């Protein structure tokens, strides 16, 4: 029975210690405000939130474990400018739903993840200048009767939680039934399984899906403007300026165009 008593005391002490540790940990994080740029330089590593499931922009290949895409190349170029080495980078998976909480949380320094600059989101985060211009479109199986956004009456349209395309499609096609998924890959799996008649999101992302599976095609052109920006924690003006200067350099040197040409063939 002594053993049991020991165990009990041990458990209580451990719980107390943990509670204390948790409290201290919280405090530390609170204090380290300030600009992301300073933090990154101090840490010697850039932590970026990217998509893992979006072909051409941010895609993790399960077979090799490599994460590649346009967003990734931009992140690497930024790491090179900031820290002199494009390998000094950590990529973390985000989805449209998790990315803003993760940025505000301090899990990531910035979001480079097919993120549209919108007035609503500007209330939550700060954006860099536009680095890519996309527009919302529709992906359907080849031979589908859907030719554009006006043919969606009574149809099931698949979209992704937390993306601007959900809000837009509800406006442009109010008679369509919208089904929302956790991420793009999940939504595309659902389309392939026949869970819906069309998938809607930015044309750039849809091109990536059509490239993966030639049985699917984009229809109806674009019906919104989706300018992509890099999201930075609200109020961090220093980092926003740094990133804007970086994007300008990238554009002026022709590097940005090279990255775009590498990924987007259409």
């Amino acid at each position, binding site marked *: *029975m002594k053993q*049991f*008593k020991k165990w009990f005391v041990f*458990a*209580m002490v*451990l*719980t107390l210690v*943990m509670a204390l540790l948790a409290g201290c940990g*919280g405090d530390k*994080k*609170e204090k380290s405000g300030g600009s992301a740029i300073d933090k990154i330089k101090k840490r010697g590593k850039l932590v970026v939130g990217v998509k*893992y*499931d979006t072909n051409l922009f941010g*895609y*993790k*290949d*399960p*077979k*090799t*474990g490599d994460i590649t895409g346009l967003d990734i190349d931009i992140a690497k170029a930024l790491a090179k400018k900031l820290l002199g080495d494009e390998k000094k980078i950590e990529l973390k*998976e*985000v*989805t449209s739903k*998790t990315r803003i*909480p993760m940025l*505000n*949380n*301090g*899990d990531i320094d910035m979001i480079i993840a097919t993120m549209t600059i919108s007035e609503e989101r500007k209330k939550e985060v700060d954006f860099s200048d536009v680095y890519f211009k996309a527009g919302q479109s529709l992906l359907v199986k080849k031979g589908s009767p859907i030719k554009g956004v006006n043919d969606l009456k009574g149809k099931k349209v698949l979209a992704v939680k937390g993306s601007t395309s959900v809000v837009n499609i509800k406006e442009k096609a109010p008679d369509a039934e919208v089904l929302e998924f*956790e*991420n793009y*890959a*999940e939504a*595309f*799996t659902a389309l*392939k*399984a026949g869970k819906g008649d069309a998938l809607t999101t930015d044309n750039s992302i849809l091109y990536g899906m059509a490239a*993966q599976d030639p049985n699917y095609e984009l229809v109806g052109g674009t019906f919104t403007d989706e300018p992509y920006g890099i999201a930075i924690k609200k109020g961090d003006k220093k980092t926003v300026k740094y990133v804007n200067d970086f994007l300008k350099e990238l554009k002026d040197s022709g590097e940005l165009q090279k990255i775009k040409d590498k990924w987007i063939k259409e």
Partner: protein
Amino acid sequence: MDFIGAYTPGNLSYLLKGLLVTLEVAVISIVLSFIIGSLLGVLRYAKIPLLSKVIAVLVETIRNLPLLLILFFTFFALPEVGIKLEIVTAAIAGLTLFESAMIAEIVRGGLVSIGKGQIEAGRSSGLSYTQTMWHIILPQALKRMIPPLVSQFISLLKDTSLAVVITLPELLHNARGIYNGGNYKIVFPILLLTAIIYFLINYSLSLLARALEKRLDTDRKQGTGLRKIRQNQKQSRPIPESF
């Protein structure tokens, strides 16, 4: 269906990586929730004025909420009130919070099942309340709690899969990553393999629980009269089996 295309070495090692995260998160959460849950269960049982009531309300509230919602909270909502957690920490915190409440009930149920008569007997033979608890009630209750505790741990291991919603790179997350990125023909084979992995781990755990149960049963028969124990069991509130 394409089993050969599904079970490539790359895919398998990606699944294995997921499995390791599942096990890591599950083991840490099991240890933490066992400690916290036992503490809460004992404190609730002890009927300390106010404290036991507060714990009762907390435990009942958490037990009656979906774990998915609790995970959402630890990951998405806590940062809004100033508590910031990494994905793995948030998953462990959410699981620990929920499972501690479940374990607290198991522990309390186990203690209640021992019956008031024994406390009275202990007290009247000159032991203090704490002594009675240490030496008489707890050892018996602990034995009785082991089977439901093990099935709760199995639940916890299964529940780690709910952390897919906060992109924890665990087994099911990686399984979905594989089939979402590939041909539709590999969906079924990958899900099947994932199910088998979960089954093998949990089934061995449940066999372990059964072996323990059997051993405890013989202990009981060798102990005091079987009849009396049956009576005790009937009086007790059955220990709730969780999902």
